[in-house]
């Protein structure tokens, strides 16, 4: 059973840069955790600390029941898949996969068996005698996966394993990795900055920002209940609309003096807030009373959906609507459902 537990783990690089602020969390056995966040937020640093490739400045990390702070990477029983695959260029595919097993003193026949099994699983059987330079990017990626699988590790670590593949292959590998991880019942930490990967693969997502974990939650929690404006605007494409507004201590939020929207529940706080609305939660109103006026600037055609960019109460605003044959006037009326309104503190950006 491989649970991963971090207690106040912190990373300060030798140059004094604090890449990961003290953080604590537990990853349960068999879970696939996706670490997501903008470039430079410390995802790789966190992952590499788990791998043992980077020292832990403070705090305690355990894999299973064992504290691994001072355990050698080779002794942590982990496997890592790197963004550029990091295959050994001078070894054949078979040797690449078997190298770790050989060093554990496993018998030759057994290594061969395991390598062949993994190769079959990954459709690599025909390439076992080739060198990495003789493989396509997708095949190299599979070899890297194979190298991780044969070790039968307690924990898979992935650092943007799909970002060097084209979009089609990425979709396919995403599903394959997910089903492999399920089948092998192995805990996994997966770093990406692709939110589609994060949403589709994760049991839970850790959203990171500038060295801190902003929110931990299931994809649905992250999407529907972002705990901060950062998470709200980072997850989802197009991002959530954020508008300055104010609450008056009752059940309404005011976008402008003459534009108040009803809230689901009573809010005690009165003062400036940020109002978040996902573009896809907005509906176009066909007529009738009420509604919010929206001044349309441009229409973006995405195939399945259409993005309408324009102004709402004087602020940039985007609406996503299902594709349908229709021409648009310059001014439209929007229906902003009560349960689609998110309120955030106007200074800290925390959810209210």
């Amino acid at each position, binding site marked *: 059973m491989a649970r991963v537990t971090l207690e106040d783990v912190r990373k300060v690089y030798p140059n004094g840069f604090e890449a990961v602020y003290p953080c604590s969390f537990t990853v349960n056995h068999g879970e696939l955790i996706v670490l997501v966040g903008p470039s430079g937020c410390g995802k790789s640093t966190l992952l590499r600390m788990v791998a043992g*490739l980077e020292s832990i400045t403070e705090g305690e990390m355990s894999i299973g029941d064992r504290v691994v702070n001072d355990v050698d990477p080779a002794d942590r029983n982990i496997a*890592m898949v790197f963004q550029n695959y990091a*295959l050994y*260029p*001078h070894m054949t595919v078979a040797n690449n996969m078997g*190298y770790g097993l050989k060093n554990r003193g496993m018998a030759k026949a057994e290594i061969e068996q395991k390598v062949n099994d993994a190769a079959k699983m990954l459709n690599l059987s025909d390439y076992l005698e080739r060198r990495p330079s003789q493989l396509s990017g997708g095949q190299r990626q599979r070899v890297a996966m194979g190298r991780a699988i044969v070790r039968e590790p307690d924990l898979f670590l992935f650092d943007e394993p799909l970002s060097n593949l084209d979009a089609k292959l990425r979709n396919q590998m995403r599903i394959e990795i997910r089903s492999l991880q399920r089948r092998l019942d192995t805990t996994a930490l997966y770093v990406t900055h692709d939110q589609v990967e994060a949403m589709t693969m994760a049991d839970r997502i850790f959203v990171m920002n500038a060295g801190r974990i902003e929110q931990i939650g299931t994809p649905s929690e992250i999407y529907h209940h972002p705990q901060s404006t950062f998470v709200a605007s980072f997850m989802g494409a197009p991002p959530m609309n954020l508008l300055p507004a104010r609450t008056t201590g009752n059940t309404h939020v005011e976008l402008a003096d003459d534009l108040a929207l009803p809230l689901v529940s009573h809010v005690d706080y009165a003062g400036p807030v940020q109002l978040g609305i996902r573009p896809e939660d907005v509906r176009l109103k066909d007529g009738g009373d009420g509604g919010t006026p929206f001044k349309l600037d441009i229409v973006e055609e995405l195939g399945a959906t259409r993005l309408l960019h324009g102004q709402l109460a004087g602020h940039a605003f985007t609406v996503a609507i299902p594709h349908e044959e229709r021409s648009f006037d310059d001014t439209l009326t929007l229906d902003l459902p009560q349960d689609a309104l998110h309120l955030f503190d106007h200074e800290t950006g925390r959810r209210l």
Partner: protein
Amino acid sequence: MKRAVFSNPWLPIMLLVPQLFIIAVFFYWPAGFAIQSSFYLQDPFGFGSTYVGLENYTDLAQSAEYKRVAWFTLLYTFAVTFFSLAIALLLAVKADNVLRGAKTYRTLLMWVYAIAPPVAGLMGVMLFDQSRGNITKLFETFGWEFRLGVDYWDTATAMIIVAVWKQVPVNFIFFLSGLQSIPRTVREAALIDNRSATGRFWDVIFPLLAPTAFFLLIINITYALFDTFGVIDTLVKAEPGNNPVTLVYKVFIDGFRGNDLGGSSAQSVVLMVLVLILTIVQFRLMERRIHYT
């Protein structure tokens, strides 16, 4: 490969002429001259020469002295090449551990390479000097009475040490940049796959360094065989006596001290053949060498 097409057929020829001229004057002409005179017996006083056929070569083959020098050259080349490469590799690995990513220090280390070769030879002579040399004094404290230019093996040791010393910085720079060009993630993958640092070095690092090492091997053999002339000359002070010399130095001694131009020409022809073989081997292996990209 890109094929360039010249509209004027004379232009490429004109461009090649200076290079061809230099090769002809400084290589083919003397080489042809050496081959020619290796078939003659020159009068020591310069009063003409007699055609003797292959006699100079058969003499060489039977000469016990020549065999002794050839053996010493072999030993010398092996020792210089081995120690230059091994010491440089060891130092490069150590430096690499410290210098990962620190490009500035690497540039600083380059300076050693720029300074060392000319100074090293002279310093060697001073350090091994019979009466004043610091290394001689150091050996003395261990009870080894080091006699440069007098004792055969003492001189050989000094020759090897100085030659190695001159060559280590060059090899070091090549090895270090070879090591630093190994992707970090490949090392990290190895770190996860193998707990033993020695194992990682021989299984992953060294094979990736092999192209560099092979290139340096050829360079160092050539260096030890031919370029150490200056070191030997300063150390034996043109008085070979009982001192060890290499084949190249013997060409010089027999030709210009012994005035045996025919014999020394035959020796240089032998050396030319050796260089030819070395070059062929190098190109053959270079072609077959795997490019890990």
